[in-house]
């Protein structure tokens, strides 16, 4: 997997303030994308979402309905296709906000890997948004 982080200028400053050993081995690319979704776009995506093929996700909803604890909930429980559906529904702005939370909690290489994965998803969504609205 490419060791790339797509970070905005403010995010790069935060990353550069991390211990040097955490920064090693990563290539930081500037995230200049600005095509975050409008509320209408996100609304449409929610209504277009289809989780019928993913009983794992429906089980989460059922667990919540019953008022049970969700502490065992984890992204790695879900099939990759379900994650893709979820990321598309969230949009770049949703993934962006997840990154804003995670970037302040980076403690080891695995955390940076997770940030890299999220940054790549955000980068792709911004790219798709840009081409969709300017085609």
């Amino acid at each position: 997997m490419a060791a790339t982080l797509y970070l905005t200028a403010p995010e790069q400053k935060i990353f550069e303030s991390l211990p040097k050993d955490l920064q090693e081995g990563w290539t930081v690319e500037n995230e200049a994308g600005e095509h975050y979704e409008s509320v209408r776009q996100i609304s449409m995506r929610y209504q277009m979402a289809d989780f019928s093929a993913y009983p794992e996700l429906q089980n989460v909803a059922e667990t919540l309905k019953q008022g049970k604890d969700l502490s065992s909930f984890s992204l790695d429980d879900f099939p990759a296709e379900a994650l893709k559906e979820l990321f598309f529904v969230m949009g770049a702005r949703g993934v962006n906000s997840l990154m804003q939370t995670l970037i302040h909690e980076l403690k080891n290489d695995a955390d940076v890997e997770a940030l890299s994965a999220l940054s790549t998803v955000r980068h792709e969504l911004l790219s798709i948004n840009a081409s969709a609205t300017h085609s």
Partner: protein
Amino acid sequence: MADTMPQPAFTRSPAQLGEILEKMEREGYNLKNLDKLDQRAIARMQVKGDTIGEEIRLLKKIDPKINGNASQLLEDLTLYRQENMAKRRFSAWEYVKSVPRRIWGTIKAHPKVSIAIGIAALLALAYFTGVGGIVVDRVRDYATKKLGAAGIAQATDAAAKAGAEAAGTATEAVKGATEALRTVVPPPPAPSPLPTAIPSLDEAGKIIDALGRSG
């Protein structure tokens, strides 16, 4: 909270919008011009009495019930087509599959992020499963219990520290989500309606509050 939650103001469900687009294509309309069609039609409709453009006639032929909401329908058709194409492109992207599962599992070690993703999943699922208000209530209870006001405030602060653009995005998103909550269309036959929310921790707390107020 009532189960009859408000829903963003789309004139038709995504499935119905897709059917209309298919019919337009069968009628020989070039859908690549849809966004331009949208603008032209809206401009014409702004001129009093002049609502018989080519596009409107075509839409009325396809769906005689559109009457006065042709402009809104055109906007929705444009948006649906755009998002449908974006979804297809994102679905064809192989990266998410290539990420080792342990990396997504790493996020579990960060409860705030994990819970935020959970909230996103649950709100999206609520559309799909039709459990509406029940899930919204449970999400609010769960987020409050797990994060508390302090946790949500901390996350908001983190977003602000990440830069003005991040904070601006969050503020705009919350504003937009709140606005979306106030809009209503007749209930579609399939999934029951649920408010739009931006799925992130810093935004989720405010959105959940807004959901509570709207109920």
